[in-house]
């Protein structure tokens, strides 16, 4: 036994508390989980937006971001310019200050891809399967690309001499320069996709023959048949349907129009026609049955048309075209008022009796909508089964505007992607789920204490003065510093971006960082839930411990 003087003056601890596995106290267990960001969820082509923004934030390189983006959408430079960006409408940042400028980020990545000549590494082609695609619009091309990613080669039949559908036959170059469209298309074609242009199915090539030869067909013919104006005078040669007018412009041809051009409609075709007329040095007047609020055109485009001081006549519908000496002198319209909302939620216009008035014009461009022309298809192939892109005929699929009626580029791209998936399932007789069905992260799930208010960085834009007389592109996109700044605004909803909060706030040192990854130390974690609440992005869940 030790003598008293040999002992220390007081008791000294010699061990650590590591002996005490406080994990046994726990009723709930924190778990890292990645949730679905609402932006990704809203993108019809399923882009992993949060993830490519994170790649840029972690400075892992533009190629990596481009590769990830184009896994879902082969048209980032196109979509970065003309997409309606539903992703931004559901961006959680809108509830805080302003949504992330996703489409301008996407555009930057797309443009870098083209400038640097980024390439995909695709699997070898399996020639066993023959697949035909009718129509080289965004739906058809997207389908060809996504098939190619799965190792299938397809053959596209396109009626026109140019590829791209409305991307090269409709949308004017001040919004979408042709070299961009053609460069993104060329990248797809070069990946080993067969093309027969100037080959309209029905005219140059019989549909039945096609079906016999290919067995698997994707119909993506768009909606190009103009609705008839159907008012007295509509047959006059100075009445030029919008699609035809825009088609000629896209083809670089001159179209004869007068000095004052009445454009009828409120969609993208109407606004594109009006803004093109303006750029040709003539006076456009847009006549629309409803008000600005109901206009179906993309919001940015309405804004720009207003900036360009395009004249609008709202709540007016054309009644007849007044012609003197074989020339159009004016358009007689009737005033409308808005009535009840219909099943699409839009309020229906109702004419006001005796309110006729005249708008002085010498040319008229109706842009009142397009329909699908399926006259070349025997029977009714386009009866599409519910939400899918399968038709009621085995081996025949359909998608894009051809099924939905005039919609959007990214919806068409999404439909092409879905078709490729279902064609793969059909050919291999497998059934794979299309996508996740978990609930995306909502704003209330976030802990905004760690976010500062920062204004959205706008895309560069041509000044008004230099854009009225040319077809030069209006938007200029980002430079690198702006890209960086805008990306840094992203909340990374539902997905860990290594902010360290869980690590910093754990009172029990139970969050370990190993090789850039976080792990809970369940030996000691007491399940307090602090990390769960302090994770700004809801990337940690709390689950009850089993007893």
């Amino acid at each position, binding site marked *: 036994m030790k003598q008293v003087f040999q002992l220390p003056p007081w008791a000294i601890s010699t*061990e650590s*508390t590591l*002996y005490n596995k406080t994990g046994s106290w726990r009723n709930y267990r924190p778990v890292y989980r990645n949730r679905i960001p609402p932006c990704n969820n809203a993108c019809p082509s399923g882009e992993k937006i949060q993830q490519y923004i994170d790649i840029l934030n972690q400075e892992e390189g533009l190629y990596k971001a481009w590769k990830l983006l184009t896994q879902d959408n082969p048209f980032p430079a196109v979509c970065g310019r003309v997409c309606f960006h539903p992703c931004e409408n559901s961006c959680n940042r809108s509830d805080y200050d302003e949504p992330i400028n996703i489409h301008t980020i996407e555009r930057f990545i797309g443009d870098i891809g083209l400038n640097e000549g980024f390439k995909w590494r695709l699997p070898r082609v399996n020639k066993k399967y023959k697949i035909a695609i009718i129509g080289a619009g965004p739906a058809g091309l997207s389908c060809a690309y996504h098939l190619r990613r799965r190792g299938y080669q397809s053959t596209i039949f396109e009626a026109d001499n140019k590829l791209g559908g409305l991307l090269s036959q409709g949308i004017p170059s001040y919004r979408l320069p042709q070299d961009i469209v053609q460069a993104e298309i060329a990248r797809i074609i070069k990946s080993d996709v067969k093309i027969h242009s100037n080959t309209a199915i029905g005219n140059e090539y019989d549909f039945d023959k096609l079906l016999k030869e290919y067995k698997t067909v994707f119909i993506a013919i768009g909606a190009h048949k103009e609705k008839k104006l159907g008012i007295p005078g509509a047959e006059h040669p100075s009445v030029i349907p919008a699609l035809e007018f825009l088609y000629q412009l896209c083809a670089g041809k001159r179209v004869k129009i007068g000095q004052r051009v009445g454009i009828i409609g409120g969609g993208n075709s109407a606004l594109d026609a009006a803004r093109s007329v303006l750029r040709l040095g003539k006076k456009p007047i847009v006549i629309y049955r409803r008000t600005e609020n109901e206009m179906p055109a993309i919001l940015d485009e309405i804004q720009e048309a207003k900036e360009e001081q395009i004249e609008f006549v709202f709540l007016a519908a054309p009644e007849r075209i007044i012609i003197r000496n074989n020339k159009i002198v004016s358009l007689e319209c009737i005033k409308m008022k808005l009535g009840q909302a219909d099943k699409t939620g839009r309020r229906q216009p109702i004419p006001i009796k005796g309110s006729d008035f005249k708008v002085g014009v010498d040319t008229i461009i109706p842009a009142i909508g397009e329909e699908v022309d399926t006259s070349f298809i025997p029977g009714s192939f386009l009866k599409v089964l519910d939400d899918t892109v399968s038709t009621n005929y085995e081996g025949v699929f359909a998608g894009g505007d051809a099924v939905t009626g005039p919609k959007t580029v990214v919806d068409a791209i999404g439909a092409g992607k879905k078709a490729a998936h279902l064609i793969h399932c059909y050919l291999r007789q497998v059934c794979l789920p299309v996508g996740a069905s978990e609930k995306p992260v909502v704003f209330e799930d976030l802990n905004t*204490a760690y976010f500062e208010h920062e204004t959205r960085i706008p895309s560069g834009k041509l000044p008004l003065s230099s854009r009225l007389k040319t077809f030069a592109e209006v938007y200029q996109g980002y430079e690198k510093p702006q890209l960086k700044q805008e990306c840094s605004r992203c909340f990374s909803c539902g997905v860990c971006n290594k902010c360290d909060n869980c690590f*910093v706030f754990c009172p029990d040192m*139970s969050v370990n960082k190993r090789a850039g990854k976080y792990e809970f130390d369940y030996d000691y974690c*007491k399940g307090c839930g*602090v990390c*769960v*609440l302090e994770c700004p992005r809801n990337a940690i869940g709390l689950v009850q411990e089993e007893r």
Partner: protein
Amino acid sequence: MKFTIPQEENMHPGHLACPGCGGALAMRLALKALGKKTMVVLPACCWSIINGPFPYSAVKVPLFHTAFETAGSVSSGIKAALDILGKKDITVLAWAGDGGTFDIGLQALSAAAERNDDFIYVCYDNEAYMNTGIQRSSATPWGAWSSTTPAAKEEPKKNIMDIMVAHRIPYAATASVSYPDDFIRKLKRAKDIKGTRFIHALVCCPTGWKCSSEISIKLTRLAVQSGIFPLYEVENGLKYTLNKPQQISPDNKLIRSYLGAQGRFANLSEKDTKKIVADIKSEWLRLLNKIEGNICIKQ
């Protein structure tokens, strides 16, 4: 935004703090800031338990358990002993609860501060004697339940910062674990100053505040945001600096959500709540006046 806090970990898990203890996190952050060359002086308080039973310890630095009322005097003594041994690079850190600071330890602390003895004193204030069963202290806020104020406490919280500032010590600051960057900066700053340095850190005790453990950090953040516990520093008893001013807006909604989340305030009537809101607002204005007063000392 990403916190850049020292990677160095000077505390072990397995300690005995309740889940979500703000006091445990406070020690973890403080030891990150001060580093291994630190000696902790610990009067009786929750941390006496948290650190573990003999022969175990949760911290990787020497920690001296001492009597409830003696944090100030024992720290003075240890510092003097270190000086005699020529060990000048060791920081002495007194680490006491609100009971050990506002109440029973006030004399020893005041005496040490008057002598300007060279140590850092951190009061981790969980607003009651939590260790012994949630008895009220003079740091318990007006209107709060405690086991010795079963209806509600009828006296306001003592203003310990004013008391310590009146000693004209070189550095006094409030700090919160909900703002780890600010917390660590203050401890590092204190380390570089000689003399008595005092840090008042409000920390959530989920057990005593009767709230769920996961909101521990959120509550002390709300305390800062609502103006209940503003973050500020005072140099030499004169120069006030408000920290994170853009975070603070003493408004009704924030104060109410702070009170509403805690069971210890469940008995408050609407009239009581209004009084609390008014008191907080006037305390906030008083603080702003002191900050304004800076201009006078500069002239």
